[in-house]
């Protein structure tokens, strides 16, 4: 069974629509760990690891470092949205596979 229509549309949008970040980066973040992992700049990886594994530990310092590194607030939002959506989709697909579906 395919993914719900609105979920598929949300995925299509974040993977294709123009934003402040490159769509290639958003795809790499959303699909991590995946083939495009090398597209993710080293400086973003600590924040992405926290969002994936223990989002409750993300701190103001994590953001301050990235703003100093040159990321805009808009870019950071897109990075976070892709990471959050990626973690959710990973679980949706794993759940469907357990049901015997091929998402």
């Amino acid at each position, binding site marked *: 069974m395919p993914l719900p229509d609105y979920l598929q549309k949300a995925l299509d949008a974040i993977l294709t629509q123009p934003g402040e970040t490159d769509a290639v980066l958003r795809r790499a973040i959303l699909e991590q760990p995946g083939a495009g992992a090398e597209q993710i700049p080293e400086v973003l990886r600590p924040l992405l690891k926290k*969002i994936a594994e223990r989002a409750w530990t993300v701190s103001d310092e994590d953001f301050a470092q990235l703003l100093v590194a040159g990321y805009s607030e808009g870019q950071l939002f897109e990075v976070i*949205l892709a990471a959050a959506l990626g973690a959710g989709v990973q679980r949706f697909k794993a759940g469907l596979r357990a049901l015997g579906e091929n998402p």
Partner: protein
Amino acid sequence: MRLKEVERPHSLLQKVRNSFMRTFMGDIPGPILAMSYGRDLGGKHLARCYQEGLRQAREWSAGELEIFAAFVANLNRCQYCIASHSAITQYALGSTERVQAVLADWRTAPISSRLRGALQFLEKLTLKPGEIGCDDADAARAAGVSDLALREAIYVCFLISTMTRLADALDFALPDPQTLQRGARILARFGYCGMRV
């Protein structure tokens, strides 16, 4: 909110919506700000997913779906989502007793075996998605959970696994108790349609 840009309205419609919400709800919930800011990058579609997954399921009541939501939020230690979804059960189920019992220990909470079977599946899916498998689905089926019901529970897991990360990464402001109750009452009555701007 850690990113101030996300709080700023970006259209006339958002300005009107924000003004309305400040008047009637006391504040603008973080999920609405995030979905609005990310509208063109999937936010407008994602907002519809919340209404679909948390209000339009066929196998579970709104109260049971909110228990799933609070349960996944608790596993992800997201205070914002735990408070929000627990508060909604006050109106969807008549009290927060059941959700509090589930959050304390779902294994001993006074709930149906069907609900417990779904929670067992959701716990593993949330914490160890790489290890969930057919045996886990079979265990849920044995507890009386149909495939459609399990699919609907999985959808909630997706929604809350996504929102807890947005809430904690962006640092959604936890509303005061009065605002929390007001928001919960509105969500229980009207659902999640308000996220769609």
